[in-house]
């Protein structure tokens, strides 16, 4: 129900901020999505979409943090165990 999925904005239309919509690509499936809550989002951005509304623009840099964190933990382990 709270399922919200990432998709890429392919085009944007509408001038009224409340009615601004975009065509969003979810791995090949295109859907019309309301962009009123992501005024900063533009073509090429990835947005999280829930029941027809984009609720955030994904931050590409932050998206890597999960992997960076993993590397830090592994390095920490090597330090603790004194391996090279």
């Amino acid at each position: 129900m709270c399922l919200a999925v990432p998709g890429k904005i392919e085009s944007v239309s509408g001038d009224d901020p409340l009615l601004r919509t975009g065509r969003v690509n979810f791995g090949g499936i295109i859907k019309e999505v309301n962009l009123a809550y992501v005024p900063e989002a533009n073509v090429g951005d990835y947005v999280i979409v829930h029941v027809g509304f984009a609720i955030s623009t994904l931050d590409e840099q932050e998206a890597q943090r999960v992997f960076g964190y993993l590397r830090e933990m592994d390095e920490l382990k090597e330090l603790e165990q004194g391996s090279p």
Partner: protein
Amino acid sequence: MKFIDEYRDAKAAHRYARAIARMTKKTWTIMEVCGGQTHAIVKFGVDELLPKEITLVHGPGCPVCVTSVELIDKAIEIASRHEVIFCSFGDMLRVPGTGKDLLSVKAHGGDVRIVYSPLDSLKIARENPAKEVVFFAVGFETTAPANAMAVYQAHQQRIENFSMLVSHVLVPPAMEAILSSPANRVQGFLAAGHVCTVMGYKEYEPIARKYHAPIVVTGFEPLDILQGVYMCVKQLEEGRFEVENQYTRSVRREGNQPAQQLIREVFRVVPRKWRGVGEIAHSGLGLNPKYERFDAEQRFGVTLHTVEESSECISGLILQGIKKPHECPAFGTRCTPEHPLGATMVSSEGACAAYHRYRRLRVPEGTRIGQKS
């Protein structure tokens, strides 16, 4: 798919699991609040990767599961009227009310339609001016901006044959209710990433401080959940209780401001009864006086109506993290997804349904993460 597949990498998942095991010294019980997380945890077997010291219990974060029997009965009553087109998200149709469900209303000729977005129901209202179109607005903070927009547009565009049966619930008061219960065993939380995408996480900071419970805002993919567990266990082991954000690619501390603005415009905080749990103060949203004419309960005169809930279903205890689905005597026997006794067996985000779907056949270790359904 980008932003999905990379977070299902089995090797990385096992590295996280090993890091968690190395760090864990004591036993801890952590609750994932959101049903979407419950679904992912059970589907990908995330909990089976964790050391035995860590127990994940499943929270109340499935709006379908916590919608009260009264509201389901009201929905059924409204949907049965000949002048009504009743629109709902699909998973509400099979939730049992006192006697029947919305699907049986449809089977008996009621015009009950499944919609993907509340804006679809507004479109149906525009196209059917002679009918009353009612939308069943269930959901947490994640869904509130969409439902607020539907009401706001109905108001702006004067679509008067549209109304909403509002069953909105709020997460932080439910977390407080769980933490302050004498039966509570939850020591830390994975907060719901999409709820916080909308609301931010400032309102969790006093809760973490007051109950000494770390809260980690967490995403929905296996690696997100494992990192969330790691951050939560780290706090527990170090004796810290802060609000941290794992899901930084989507969640900012102040949340989505335009969305919050429209929620405040259309809705106000009200007490709400949660199925299996009871009434929790300040835990729901209702329409502001300015938009009350779109309230389906008032429009159809179904405001006064209370019922007793069935006693066999223990979903209330499951939603509070006190019991697990397989501890229910009806689980898999008298209660199945085909014949659900409680709502947690209906929704794919309900803990009972997730256990029933994914836990019947054991899959060999190591093959679960990254599998496609």
